[in-house]
């Protein structure tokens, strides 16, 4: 009996019961969500320990693939399922949101996000993606200010367009292959998808799902939404949901689309994201927008890393993605108290030295200062790009270096502003960080420091994860079994 389905089922069950349950029994609304997330984290950890790193699959409803839907449990899927539960638990809005409906939306998003990490079926991925989208609409609109509703409206329209594009791409693939199971599609892809139509389907899916991954050019919703939504929601969207969207895209790329043009496209879109994101962040006038634009830049970097052919690219891409998964939520949590324009934050570091110290730690890692993990991730990406015998890749490496200069400049400018001398009196109005608002950042900072110390084992483990991700044979034999007759 494989319990991984609980990771999707339990948060959904909680979400269905919460709006009613919280009205009848007060503590249900506060405790049910965190309790369920703890339980799902435990389920993933136990499964992971028992699997010993070997991929497996489950058949939902008991129907054999490719007829039924499967979940594929390799290390990548498990680590993201675990990260989903743990990050949601860490960023759970205990005090701020008394409304049980918002807690229910969080649970719905967690359930669907875990589903995106696990699912091995093209249409099932789309269903979970759509559920993530709709739940995130509610979460970003929850403050119900005029600005938040206006930002949400734009987000809804762009997301809606994205889901239509992704669905068109999926439909195209289905008309060419007659199946939706990823393992089955992998077998058929060489004969049916290695053509213009297959590439078109990939582009449609890339831009469709890329809305959540903040890819150029479907990312114009990002700054306004992150600036107006609750910071914890922004943290989840920028840190977790964007990575899941990327992971889905990369999984499809590895399994279904072997065309070299697809990689070049990733490189170009990623480079534009890096350049425009970091330049816009350099111009930003308040903390949240700066983080939002920086997040666009970082996701562009993730995409550029994944555009390097072969296992090296997957390794570098995973490294950059996991690094950003830890750093960006921590920074958004700091913005809870440091919301708003730079001018109002002058000298705020004197009052909250811990928060300022954490900001500097994360900023250094983002820029890529050794020996922090961000340095190794960026170095691997640069070396990978320069190792290709192709001028486009070299240009990409140049763009990363140029963007890093801007990145360092605006992060240092903000960091120095926090410690501006003689501005203590003006900073009297700036709220001081307390344990509650620092907690999540402190924990994530500790994770970052542990990764710094243990960089060799972490790197080796990540290389193993990348190996599994790159192994198409393994995926097919795990899900379909060897030598079974297929329809």
């Amino acid at each position, binding site marked *: *009996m494989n319990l991984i*389905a*609980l990771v*999707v*089922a339990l948060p*959904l*069950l909680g979400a*269905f*019961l919460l*709006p*009613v*349950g919280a*009205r009848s029994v007060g503590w249900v609304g506060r405790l049910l969500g965190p309790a369920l997330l703890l339980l799902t984290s435990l389920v993933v950890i136990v499964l992971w320990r028992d699997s010993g790193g070997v991929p497996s699959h489950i*058949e*939902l*409803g*008991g*129907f054999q693939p*490719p*007829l*039924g*839907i499967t979940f594929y449990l390799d290390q990548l899927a498990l680590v993201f399922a675990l990260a989903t539960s743990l990050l949601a638990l860490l960023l759970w809005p205990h005090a701020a949101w008394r*409304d049980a*409906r918002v807690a229910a*939306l969080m649970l*719905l998003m967690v*359930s*669907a996000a875990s*589903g995106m990490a696990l699912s091995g079926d093209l*249409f*099932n991925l789309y*269903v*979970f993606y*759509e*559920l993530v989208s*709709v739940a995130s*609409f*509610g979460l970003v*609109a*929850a403050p*119900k200010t005029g600005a938040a*509703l206006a930002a949400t409206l734009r987000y809804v329209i762009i997301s809606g367009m994205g889901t239509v594009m992704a669905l068109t791409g999926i439909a*195209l693939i*289905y*008309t*060419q*292959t*007659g*199946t*939706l*199971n990823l393992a*089955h599609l992998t077998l058929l892809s060489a004969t049916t998808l290695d053509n213009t139509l297959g590439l*078109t389907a990939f*582009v*449609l899916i890339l831009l469709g799902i890329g809305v959540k991954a903040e890819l150029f*050019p*479907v990312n*114009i919703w990002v700054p306004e939404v992150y600036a107006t939504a609750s910071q914890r929601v922004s943290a989840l969207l920028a840190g977790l949901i964007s990575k899941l969207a990327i992971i889905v895209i990369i999984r499809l790329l590895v399994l279904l689309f072997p065309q070299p043009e697809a990689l070049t496209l990733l490189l170009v879109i990623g480079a534009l994201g890096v350049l*425009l994101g970091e330049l816009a962040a350099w111009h930003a006038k308040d903390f949240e927008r700066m983080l939002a634009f920086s997040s666009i830049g970082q996701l562009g970097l993730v995409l550029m890393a994944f555009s390097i052919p072969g296992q090296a690219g997957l390794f570098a891409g995973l490294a950059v993605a996991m690094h950003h998964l830890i750093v960006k939520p921590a920074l958004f949590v700091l913005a809870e108290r440091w919301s708003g324009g730079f001018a109002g934050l002058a000298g705020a570091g004197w009052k909250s030295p811990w928060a300022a110290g954490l900001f500097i730690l994360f900023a250094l890692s983002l820029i890529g200062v050794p020996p922090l993990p961000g340095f190794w991730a960026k170095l691997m990406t640069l070396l990978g790009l320069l190792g290709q015998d192709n001028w486009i890749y070299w240009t990409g490496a140049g763009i990363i270096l140029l963007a890093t200069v801007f990145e360092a400049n605006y992060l240092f400018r903000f960091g120095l502003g926090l410690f501006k001398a003689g501005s203590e009196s003006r900073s009297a109005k700036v709220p001081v960080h307390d344990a509650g608002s620092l907690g999540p950042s402190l924990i994530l900072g500790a994770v970052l420091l542990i990764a710094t110390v243990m960089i060799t084992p972490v790197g080796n483990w990540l290389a193993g994860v990348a190996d599994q991700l790159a192994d198409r044979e393994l995926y097919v034999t795990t899900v379909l079994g060897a030598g079974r007759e297929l*329809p």
Partner: protein
Amino acid sequence: MRNLTSPLFAAGLAFFLLVVVAEFEPGAAPMVVGQAILQEAPETTGTANIVTAVVLGYRGIDTLGEIAILFTASLVAGLVLERRGGKRQAQAPAGNVLRISTQLLFPLMLVIGFYIILHGHLTPGGGFQGGVILAAAFFLPLLARPGIQVRHFGLAVTEGLAGSAFIVIGLIALFQGGAFLQPLFGTGSPGQLLSAGSLPILYLVLGLKVGAELAGLLAHLVYEGSET
């Protein structure tokens, strides 16, 4: 920046759609999995209506996801449209003809709705279709008598419990040693009212959930829309 991206994006999209039109061969789609399901579904699931076998059996988790999306949409609509105090404007009541005919229609629509839901595994129809008819049945009185209060709590209880029942049935299968959402109670003989194991039960709770959700959603829209 923004002014430049939109036309570029639109042009790119148009290009890709043109590629699809140029390359695509209509009518030549292979029915790989579809054909296999058509062949084995009546035997494995016991449904006379193959669509139901796909919706609740082969792709049951998709259906669970879809009702979760509907639930989320209704939750978000409630959250965003919630009134911040103030009373709804009084509307003139509808005429006798409208009121009496909605009263006559109400039980009929309930019967049709439940019939379609309960025969979902036998004939075209099922939880989604029947649920919409149930929602319409509860929505008609709202249109005819604008003054009556909607019992949102009752709707919320219905949709919460129905959705939970769907998942609990799936979990029972899991803890009995099967897979999550595996059909229970055998298949019976296809074509009988009592056949297809637990699938009709799933369709019943799905129908109730869809009905309660749509009714709640429509009630929100009517009440909030008429506010200003």
